[in-house]
């Protein structure tokens, strides 16, 4: 069961707080990075609550570490739940990855092997997190740079299995599909075609850094044409889905991102027309 489609959103970044409140930009919603607001007080929570008063907000985490073999971090989950109770986000998401083990945190989105063992492990943890938070969560596909010899299925088969078992929702990062497709030599359209369309609640778009032999998911540049095309392809297949742009480095002025978001609206509109006339 999906939540409503929120339209076109942007990642909420500290440099834009004041401008958002003053100019009320034509952005339908904002995605806030959960950890930035898991603090005791001060400016971050003050601005988040003020912006939340004007816009729908979703929470997007980087530290859930759903794939780690360490025990689930209940302190983290409690803090996340407290934040969610306070902000009342439209939904909560994190990544299909692990971020460290033996209590150490690498602070990166590390890849999983696609094995039945990993499916069992991650599925049971997604179920426990959903129980704890008392809401379905969205799980996002990450960019990856290695394939494990242990893998017995494709990434999309792995995601399908998890979604089926846990009834979780999906955050489809179209840029990550493109990046991983380039890095591992698969057709990104095959990935997108294989996902359970009815579970895709949100789409991420972002820029990346092409190093020739591989692409790194840097979120520091405008979205490239190939990713726009893949986004159009995705919307043609799925119909309208809440879409947002992530920018984490070299963050430009708000107006630049609002105009990039307008481009997403255009691409989605064209794709919806194509789908309707097909």
């Amino acid at each position: 069961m999906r939540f409503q489609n929120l339209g076109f959103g942007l990642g909420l970044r500290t440099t834009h707080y004041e401008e958002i409140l003053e100019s009320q930009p034509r952005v339908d919603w904002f995605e806030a990075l959960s950890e930035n607001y898991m603090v005791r007080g001060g400016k971050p929570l003050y601005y988040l609550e003020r912006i939340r008063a004007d816009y729908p907000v979703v929470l997007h985490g980087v530290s859930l570490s759903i794939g780690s073999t360490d025990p689930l971090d209940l302190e983290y989950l409690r803090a996340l739940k407290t934040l969610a109770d306070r902000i009342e986000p439209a939904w909560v998401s994190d990544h299909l990855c692990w971020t460290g083990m033996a209590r150490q945190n690498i602070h990166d989105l590390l890849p999983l092997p696609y094995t039945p063992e990993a499916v069992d492990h991650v599925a049971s943890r997604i179920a426990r997190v959903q129980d704890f938070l008392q809401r379905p969560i969205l799980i996002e596909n990450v960019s990856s740079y290695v394939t494990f010899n242990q893998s017995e299925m494709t990434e999309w088969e792995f995601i399908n299995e998890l979604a089926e078992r846990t009834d979780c929702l999906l955050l489809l990062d179209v840029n990550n599909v493109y990046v991983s497709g380039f890095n591992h030599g698969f057709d990104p359209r095959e990935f997108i075609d294989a996902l359970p369309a009815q579970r895709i609640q949100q789409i991420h778009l972002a820029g990346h850094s092409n190093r020739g032999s591989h692409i790194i998911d840097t979120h520091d540049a405008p979205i490239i044409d190939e990713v726009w095309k893949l986004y159009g392809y995705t919307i043609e297949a799925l119909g309208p889905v809440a879409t947002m742009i992530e920018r984490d480095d070299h963050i430009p002025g708000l107006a630049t991102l609002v105009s990039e978001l307008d481009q997403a609206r255009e691409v989605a509109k064209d794709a919806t027309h194509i789908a309707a006339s097909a």
Partner: protein
Amino acid sequence: MNSLAELQDRFQAHIVHNEEAVTGDIAGPDDAYRQERLHIYYSAYRLRLIAALAVDYPVLKAFVGEQRFEQLATAYIEARPSMVRNLRWFGDSMTGFLRSDQRFSNESILAELAEFEWAQGLAFDAADAAQVGFDELASVPAEHWPQLRFIAHPSLQLVASQWNVVALWHAHRDGENLPTASCQDQAGTIAVWRKSYKTYFRSLDGDEALLWRTLAAGTAFGEACSRLATQMGMDEASAAQRAAQLLRSWVEEGWIQGFDIVTDD
């Protein structure tokens, strides 16, 4: 350990210690390819944490320069691997690290800069709390003033400093060349706090630091005034007058979250 845990252990050992065992788990045409791909994770780990420390410690970075900051941050990452969920807290033990690590401990200004910058971060997102106004305090009958006990605003931090860290901070903020490091004979005290979502700091005089520490430890106002008089060699009346003046500035600056009146029973 199950096979997933063993794989994660090998993968993490590569990222943290450059151990090679995980290479055999990676698909690819040859070892050069596998190592190149693994290196993306190895190097991203360091770059991300160094960048996080640069956000927490911009003046320290400017003071030691880009290259030495990278060495310093890399040494910190190795000595104090992250055990925290939130990257916000990764730099938490930098002051202690710089004080104790032999590569840096003989330059005490480094730890002082770190402590000063970290205090600003703590003030920035400390818990929200009321800030008592002067009217509230003025409504306390005069006979109860000796029994007043104050609660410090949670954002208020005191740091000791012998070096010119404030001057360095100002020069960095204004984009100027940093002044030469200079050291006083005695350590001064800097207060860092937040008011109306803005972070402030200023240096404290010796008697001010003494009185604030006494009050913040929960001592009643009358007793704190007596200690001020004794320790600063003042008469009781001058000490009380000075204390009232300091209290007024603290209230204006938002250092005080609340107060109560200590009763004898």
